[in-house]
C-alpha cells in the first residue's frame, strides 16, 4: 500500500487490479486464475503486472474450461484458499452455470454449513460489439442463487472497495464488471478502501424521482439527472451496487420520499433484475407510489453484435430522461 492515504485517479480496470494486488499482498491464500490473466494481464488489463509481482504460482492461466475454472475454484475455496477466478466474459455463464449456481452458491448450505466458500468470480458484462452471446448482462440469473452474493460496481472507487471486501468475505461473490466501464477514470480514496457488500449508495440526492440503476446505467442516470435538473425535476440516483444482498432500506426510503420510480439496467427488460426490484416495491411500498414503476432496459431481443444496431437498443441517459418525463 504505497500510497496509503492519498486519493488517486484510476481507471475502473486499474482499480480492480489494485484491489487484487492489495489483497494478494495482504493474504497469501488469495490467487487469481482465468484465461489469459497471466502474461497477457487479462484481456481488459485488470490483472496486468500481477504475474510479475506474485509469480506463476498465484497468477495462473487456465485452459478454455469454464466449468473447471469455477468448479475447481470451489474446490480450492473449501480447502483453505481464496480464489479470484475470471470468466473472460460473463457470456460464458452458461458453461459454468451448474458450478456458479449449484456449487459456488450452495456447497456450504447443502453440506450443512460445514464449509466456507470464500471466492470471487469476476464476470465482465455488457454490450461491446462482441455478439449476442458475449454482450449480455446476466446478473438477474443469479437473483435466485441464494448462498452467493451478487456485486456490481459502477465506478472505480466502488470497484476497488467492493472487490477488496468481496475477497475478504467468506461467502462466494459473483462480481460483475461492465466492459464499457474498464477505461473510465475516477477518483479513488487512498488507504485501505473498503466498501461493504450489500450497501446501496445514493449517488445523487433528489426529491422528485428515484432512479434505481446499476453498472453502466448509473453514469447514464447521473447524466440524465443533470439534464432533468434543468427542467426542474430533482432526481435521486440510487445504486444498489449489487443485487444480493439487496439494500432494501435505502431503496424503500428513497421511494417513500419521492413516490416515483424508474429502474434502469442494460439487460433486456424481460427477465432483467428490474423486475425483482419493481416487485419488491409493489409489495412493500405501493402506498407511496404516485406513478407506475417504469423499467428502462434493452429491448427484448438478444444484443446484436453490430454496434450500429446497438444504438437503437441499448439504454442511455436519454432513455432515462425520457422515462422520467413519462412519469405521472
Amino acid at each position: 500500500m504505497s500510497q496509503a492515504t492519498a486519493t488517486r485517479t484510476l481507471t475502473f480496470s486499474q482499480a480492480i487490479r489494485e484491489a487484487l494486488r492489495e489483497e494478494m499482498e495482504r493474504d497469501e491464500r488469495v490467487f487469481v486464475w482465468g484465461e489469459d490473466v497471466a502474461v497477457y494481464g487479462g484481456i481488459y488489463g485488470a490483472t496486468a503486472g500481477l504475474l510479475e509481482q506474485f509469480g506463476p504460482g498465484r497468477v495462473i492461466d487456465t485452459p478454455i474450461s469454464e466449468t473447471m475454472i469455477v468448479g475447481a475454484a470451489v474446490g480450492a475455496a473449501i480447502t483453505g484458499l481464496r480464489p479470484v477466478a475470471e470468466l473472460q466474459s460473463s457470456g460464458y455463464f452458461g458453461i459454468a452455470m451448474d458450478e456458479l449456481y449449484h456449487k459456488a452458491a450452495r456447497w456450504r448450505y447443502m453440506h450443512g454449513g460445514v464449509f466456507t466458500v470464500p471466492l470471487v468470480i469476476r464476470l465482465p458484462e455488457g454490450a461491446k460489439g462482441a455478439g449476442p452471446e458475449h454482450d449480455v448482462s446476466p446478473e438477474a440469473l443469479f437473483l435466485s442463487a441464494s448462498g452467493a452474493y451478487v456485486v456490481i460496481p459502477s465506478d472505480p472507487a466502488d470497484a476497488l472497495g467492493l472487490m477488496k471486501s468481496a475477497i475478504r468475505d467468506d461467502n462466494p461473490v459473483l462480481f460483475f464488471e461492465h466492459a464499457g466501464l474498464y477505461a473510465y477514470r475516477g477518483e479513488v480514496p487512498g488507504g485501505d478502501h473498503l466498501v461493504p457488500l450489500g450497501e446501496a449508495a445514493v449517488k445523487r440526492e433528489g426529491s422528485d424521482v428515484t432512479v434505481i440503476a446499476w453498472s453502466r446505467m448509473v453514469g447514464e442516470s447521473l447524466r440524465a439527472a443533470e439534464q432533468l435538473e434543468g427542467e426542474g425535476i430533482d432526481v435521486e440516483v440510487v445504486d444498489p451496487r449489487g443485487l444480493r444482498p439487496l439494500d432494501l432500506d435505502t431503496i424503500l426510503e428513497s421511494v417513500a420520499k419521492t413516490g416515483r420510480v424508474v429502474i434502469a439496467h442494460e439487460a433486456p427488460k424481460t427477465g432483467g433484475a428490474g423486475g425483482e426490484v419493481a416487485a419488491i416495491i409493489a409489495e412493500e411500498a405501493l402506498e407511496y407510489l404516485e406513478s407506475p414503476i417504469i423499467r428502462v432496459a434493452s429491448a427484448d431481443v438478444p444484443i446484436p453484435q453490430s454496434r450500429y444496431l446497438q444504438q437503437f437498443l441499448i439504454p442511455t441517459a436519454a432513455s432515462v430522461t425520457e422515462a422520467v418525463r413519462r412519469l405521472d
Partner: protein
Amino acid sequence: MTAISPATLLELYESMVTMKLWDQTALRLLQEGRVLAGYHSGRGQEAIPAGGVAPLRRDDYLMYAHRGFGYTIAKGMSLAAMFGDLMANTAGATGGLGAGIPHFADPELGILGQGGTLGSCFGIATGAAFSAKYRGTDQVVVCFFGDGTANRGAFHESVNAAAAWKLPVVWICENNGYAVSVPVAESTAGRIVDRAAGYGMPGVRIDGMDVTEVYRATSEAVDRARAGEGPTLIEAMCHRFRGHYEGDPQVYRTEEETERLLALDPITNLEARLVADGIATDERLGELEVRVQDTIDRAVEEASSAPMPGPERLYEGLYV
C-alpha cells in the same frame, strides 16, 4: 507388486463388512419408512471404496460418489452422523438440514462432500488438489465416479487441468456396466481407461471386485500423486448387485444376469481367501461381523434418539 499384509487384509475385510451391514441396515430403515430420501445401494461394489480409500491419510481429500456409503465409512465418518442424515434428523452431519444422502461432509476428515449433479466432483477434486499443491502440503485427493458420470464434460475439463498441472489426484471410475438403465457400451465410445493416454497420464484397468487389486493400484497412484508425479486414472470393473435405486424394476437386465452376479460377491471371495490363506478362521470372521453389526446398531440407536429439526434450521448456514 508388493504383498498386502495380513493385518491390512483384515482391515479391508472389516471395512467391506461394515459397508455391507450398513447397506442392509439402511435398506431395513428404508422399508420401515424411516429414511427421508432416495438410496442407491452399494452392494457388490464394496471392494472399490474399501481398497480406494484405505491408502489415504486422514488429511487426504475424498470426493465420493452416490453409490452406497462405503467411501465415507472407509474415511472414518461417524456412522451415527450418517444415519442421522439418512433420517434427516439433527444427529446428521448436516444438523438435520436433511440435506440427506449423500450431501454430507467432514472437513476434519478431508471429506469434501458430493454434488447432486453428477460430475460436480471433478472440478472440486481438481481444485482441492491444486489447493494442496499451492499450500505446499503433500495431501492427495481421491475422486470416485461411475462409468456414466465419466461422460460429463466436467470430466474432460477437470482431468485435463489436473494432468496439465501435475496435480495430486487419483481418479477412480467404478465401471459397473450401467448408468441407471443404460449399458456402458451404448453410451460410451472406447474404453474409459484409454482416455488417460489422451491426457498424458497413466491409466490402469483393474478388477474392481478384488479389493487387493484396488488397494494396490490406488496405493501406487497415491504414492505417485504424493511424490508430485501427477494424476492417475483407475478404471475398476465391477457389478452392481441391486437396482440403481431401491424400487428400480431393472427392466434393462434379466434376472439371470442379476443372479449370476451374486456369485461374484467381493466379500465372500475375500472371506474364502482369508480362510484359505490361514489369515483368519470362519469363527473369527463371524465374530468380526457380530462386532460390526453391534457398532452399527448402536449408531442407529444414537441417531434415532435425535429430534427432527425445527423450521429455523432452513435459515441457518446459508451465509457465513
